[in-house]
């Protein structure tokens, strides 16, 4: 069948090495002057309009450091100098560690580690083929798929563990660590849940000190456009930053409803939210590892509903990345996440096929997110394998072309001569192994190529059945279970 597993003497499958998109051929889509103008607009918004921080501790920290806090409205205005000096404390690079150190991500511009899409709420059940609400077991399965795919650098909770209502975010952590050796990025909200999450990450890392040195966990906090932070998100961000866990702020402005109807305006709203969050953490915990992310969407002008893809969605693949780098912090770029209700359709590729190339060329350190359809809500088992194919096209196209005496093959060309053929050449035998990277659409049966969608489905089934990565040590598994029980008691 369609997969290969490296056999080991151990009773588990080896996780194949990561294959991030690396390119030395970066494109700067925005000019310096444009980046300055965008940054200046963000500073202006932060200084004159402000951002709402509905969280007492945050307001105190910000007020203590010279931000202008209005206790009645909870709106904070940021003097420019305060923003600039706080941002200067944020590290440009850091490591996001993995359960297995071979899969640590050393963040650097120009190497892009992709992850799963998130956070879906429905799955197409691989056994029945019917749609149903997502469960923890679905995430556990998909974490194994993510572990198997070299294109996936780190794991996201791609669908919600809805069968564990109030502790779903913690059960997602449990599902990920038990099914992948890669770094896990969660979306944990609230002070108490964040403390449980830190405990879980500490168990996996081994100790608080190790967790700080090699954070096996990172957390993503979503702000509320326009220009507001979330109380539970702020609580969590402060807990995580204190523990040395990298925290990303993500803004999802929707053009026309929660943001201006122009891309640049939406990026300003998003940037102001993200930067205000990062400033808070840098003031509270100077040097805390952080990253920056803006993912824009659109309001359908006829219905007001949320649409992920417009014709200019590619702009959102590069502009926020360049804005983050202009601030001097790592970026989490946004790719994939088609609006197509089904996987494997023309639209499901047309929406997203440009994304990994444009994203890769901009050089974000982290990128979301493969594997969901219907605007990040629905997981088809084959979806991630189809998205992976698009990723591979971008990755190969951005690799440096191998040009040397061996690949130029002038002696072979001379020996074949005009009108000959290369089939009998030793050089052909040697290089043909690499000349055709066989994708889903080049799976042969009886001399004919099979339907790539069917191949993807089979591949998904094969990985589910066969890829079982190195398990977490039993004692750590038990400890995570114990923490989950405590969390259930505490959080309900």
């Amino acid at each position, binding site marked *: 069948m369609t997969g290969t597993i490296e056999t080991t003497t151990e009773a588990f499958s080896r996780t194949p090495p990561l294959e991030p998109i690396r390119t030395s051929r970066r*494109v700067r*889509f*925005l000019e310096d002057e*444009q980046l300055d*103008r965008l940054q200046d607009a963000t500073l202006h*918004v932060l200084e*004159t*309009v402000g951002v*709402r921080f509905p969280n007492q501790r945050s307001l105190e920290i910000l007020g203590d450091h010279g931000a202008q806090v209005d206790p009645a409205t909870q709106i904070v205005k940021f003097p420019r100098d305060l923003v600039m000096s706080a941002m200067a404390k944020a590290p440009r690079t850091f490591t996001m560690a993995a359960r297995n150190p071979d899969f640590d991500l050393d963040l650097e511009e120009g190497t892009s580690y992709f992850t799963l899409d998130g956070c879906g709420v429905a799955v197409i059940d691989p056994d029945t083929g019917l749609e149903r609400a997502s469960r923890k077991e679905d995430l556990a399965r998909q974490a194994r798929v993510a572990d198997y795919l070299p294109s996936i650098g780190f794991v996201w909770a791609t669908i919600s563990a809805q069968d564990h209502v109030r502790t779903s975010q913690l059960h997602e952590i449990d599902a990920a660590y038990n099914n992948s050796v890669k770094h896990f990025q969660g979306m944990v909200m609230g002070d108490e849940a964040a403390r449980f999450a830190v405990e879980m990450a500490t168990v996996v890392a081994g100790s608080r000190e190790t967790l700080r040195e090699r954070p096996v966990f990172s957390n993503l906090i979503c702000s*509320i456009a*326009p*220009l*507001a932070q979330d109380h539970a998100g702020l609580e969590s961000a402060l807990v995580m930053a204190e523990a040395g866990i990298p925290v990303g702020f993500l803004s999802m402005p929707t053009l*026309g409803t929660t943001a*201006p*109807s122009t891309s*640049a305006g939406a990026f300003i709203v998003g940037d102001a939210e993200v930067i205000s969050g990062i400033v808070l953490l840098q003031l509270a915990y100077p040097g805390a590892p952080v990253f920056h992310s803006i993912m824009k969407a659109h309001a359908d*002008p006829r219905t007001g509903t949320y649409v992920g893809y417009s*014709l*200019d969605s*590619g702009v959102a693949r590069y502009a926020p990345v360049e804005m983050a780098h202009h601030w001097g912090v790592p970026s989490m770029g946004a790719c994939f996440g088609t609006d*197509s*209700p089904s996987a494997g*359709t*023309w*639209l*499901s*590729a*047309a929406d997203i*096929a*440009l994304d990994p190339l444009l994203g890769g060329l901009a050089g974000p350190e982290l990128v979301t997110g493969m594997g969901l359809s219907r605007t990040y809500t629905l997981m088809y088992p084959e979806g991630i394998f189809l998205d992976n*194919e*698009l990723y591979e*096209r971008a990755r*190969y*196209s951005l*690799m440096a*072309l*191998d*040009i*040397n005496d061996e*690949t*130029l093959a*002038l002696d072979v*060309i*001379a020996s074949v*001569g005009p009108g000959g*053929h*290369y*089939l009998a050449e030793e050089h*052909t*035998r040697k*290089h*043909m192994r*690499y*000349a*055709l990277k066989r994708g889903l*659409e080049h799976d*042969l049966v009886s001399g004919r190529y099979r339907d*790539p969608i069917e191949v993807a489905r089979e591949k998904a089934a094969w990985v589910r059945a066969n890829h079982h990565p190195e398990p977490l040590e039993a004692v750590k598994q038990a400890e995570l279970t114990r923490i989950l029980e405590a969390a259930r008691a505490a959080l309900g």
Partner: protein
Amino acid sequence: MAPVTPALAPIRSARRLRLLDDGQLADLRAATLEILATIGVHVPSARVLGLYEEHGARVDHAGGIVRFPPELVLAAMARAPRTYTLGGRTPDFDLLLDGSAFYVGTDGCGIRVMDPVTGAVRPSTVADVADMARVADALPALGFYWPIVSAGDHPATAPVHELLASYSNTVKHVQSETVVDPVMARHAVEMARVIGGSDEAVRARPPLSSLICAISPLAQDAEALEAALVFAAAGVPVGIMSMANCGTTGPAAIAGSLAQGDAEIIAALVLVQLVHPGAPVFHSMMPGVMDPRTGGYVSTSISGEVAYAAGVEIAHHWGVPTLAGVFGTDAPEPGWQVAAESAVNLTLCGLLGAETGSGMGLLDACTVLHREQIVLDADLHERVRVNLAGLDTSPGALAVDVIREVGPRGHFLYQPHTREGMRRMRFSSVAGRRAPDGSPVPPLEVARAEVARLLRDHHPEPLDDAQAVELGRIVAAADRRLGA
């Protein structure tokens, strides 16, 4: 009343990408020159061999091989113009090839058509060429027209029937990829003269260009080279294409196939420049990869796509425009695979500053026409065009005043800025459509309906009567002469 052909919407990239560095381009150039100097190219025509020899190439008459001193190659290529214009039937559709715009045309030359009504595949006819010329005329994404399928109902003189059907149904520039012998080329030049109005007009704004394919490895077709010289003499731009296939007709490593393909192209372009110095030419590298299990041709593999982009840079390194290979997927029918195999390469060629590319509308490795595919391809083209145009950071787009007005936790729905901006928001023309009952309409169905609408409603400015009569006379003469 004939609707006006909408203005062209080529890809204009705000930024440029270089995939190959100077050292790599120099290595490729050196390899090409070495192949041309020491291995040579097979030319099975005493007359053409004589022309090469007359201008300083080393000719082995017995073997039919031409070898080129590097300085001869460099001097000849130095005469080729870097920029020139491809004329439309009307000047509004002229294509200035100066690197500021990437014009994509139709694909060609298919031989079968999927009937949208019966679902059956049938051989293509001149009526299909005419129909698709009208569809291409209506789509701003199409910069020029390749007769998309063969006029299979006119087997002996298909190329001139294809040109007649094209000129009669689009005001856009026409590029022929099927006129490959000198007799047909003379008829084609006559037709171009009718469209242009005079010999001088054809030279200034050639309404026709031509594409000639080399035979890998390292061979030329005698008739095709003669045709190229007929075109060049008339000022009709000539492109030479190599389709070296990694593993069968080219080395199994991409770099070797690029060097060999380049040598094939340059050998023919040098001939054109030696005989007609300064003639407008272009360079087209479209290498495939062999499937090692079947020996079959794979045009759009994960690992082979970069060769098309590299071809663009090689052309520019020689100082000539390129015809890039875009679209032309191996997918057997419309669907996921088509978009998956088309987007990356189109984006790369746009970023690299390709001047022209082909092409949209065919499937199954450029052999089968599914009419609706051209609308889907045009939608993908539009996505690339909009995204490569860059980000508007003007004060109106930054909208800081509007952000201040709304403030934290507000919404933008009531803002006049929103009303204006929502009108300018661009969504896919085929995605997100809903039927009256609210159910989603698949893009394929939207595209099918759009083709039907265009065929019913879009009738571009016709040829004037005298031109129509004259073109008909030329085609009739070709039919008589060539025994149709």
